[in-house]
């Protein structure tokens, strides 16, 4: 098995991870998002020529209001730190339970640390689809961020990941 940047030649239609929302995004939107040069880049895990997993990474900012927020022309302004977000990670249902998710996460973390060598990134964040997914990331040292959003958001500091993974 190996990872590659998502390309048109990958057959996305047969991918099923058991979460309709992720499957649908992968089937219909992943390639478009990448082609439109929007922020998300998708990496696929392939076994021969079959896609057995994927993840997508995007840049974003994590903003926090040191209360009270400064008002700039009447608009609240917040401090923010640059981050890379693991927006999605999924394994085909026929391949779940084999530790591939752990290895794929390790691959994604190393992608982020490689980028962090040359670009200032403070956090790696994760959008978890639900509480069970959040628990998965917590097992690897990601901590919950308190936000107003429904979906769990987690983060690990780049400097801690560097100290731990030795890069």
């Amino acid at each position, binding site marked *: 098995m190996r990872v590659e940047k998502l390309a048109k030649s990958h057959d996305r239609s047969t991918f099923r991870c058991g979460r309709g929302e992720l499957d649908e995004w992968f089937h219909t939107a992943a390639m478009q998002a990448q082609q439109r040069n929007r922020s998300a880049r998708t990496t696929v895990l392939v076994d021969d020529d079959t896609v057995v997993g994927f993840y997508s990474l995007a840049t974003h900012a994590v903003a*926090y209001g040191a209360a009270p927020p400064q008002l700039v022309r009447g608009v609240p302004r917040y401090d923010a730190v640059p981050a890379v977000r693991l927006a999605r990670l999924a394994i085909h249902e026929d391949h779940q339970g084999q530790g591939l998710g752990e290895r794929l996460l390790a691959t994604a973390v190393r992608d982020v640390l490689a980028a962090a060598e040359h670009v200032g990134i403070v956090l790696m964040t994760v959008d978890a689809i639900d509480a069970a997914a959040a628990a998965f990331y917590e097992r690897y040292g990601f901590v919950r*961020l308190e936000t107003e959003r429904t979906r769990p958001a987690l983060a690990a500091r780049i400097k801690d990941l560097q100290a731990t993974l030795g890069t």
Partner: protein
Amino acid sequence: MATIERDQRLNARLTEQEDRLLREAAAELGKPVSRFVIEAGVEQAREILADTQVLRVADRAAAEFEAWLDVPPQKLLAAKRLADAEPFERT
């Protein structure tokens, strides 16, 4: 089989033109107009939230978050598993 409870309502005003357009598109897919509008809206909402460029830490947690950023680097016991996991080779 579990049934999905749809107990919330959404009322919206729209122009005759918009109404015609939505009905035509929904008929094309053979879906009731209300389902068509909701599915399209929900799908776009998911996309927007997934691709949002700024994640806001809740105000009540901002001070703690800021302090956390300044803590010196430390090895994460849990992330050791990631250090030990073999990453996939990239081609």
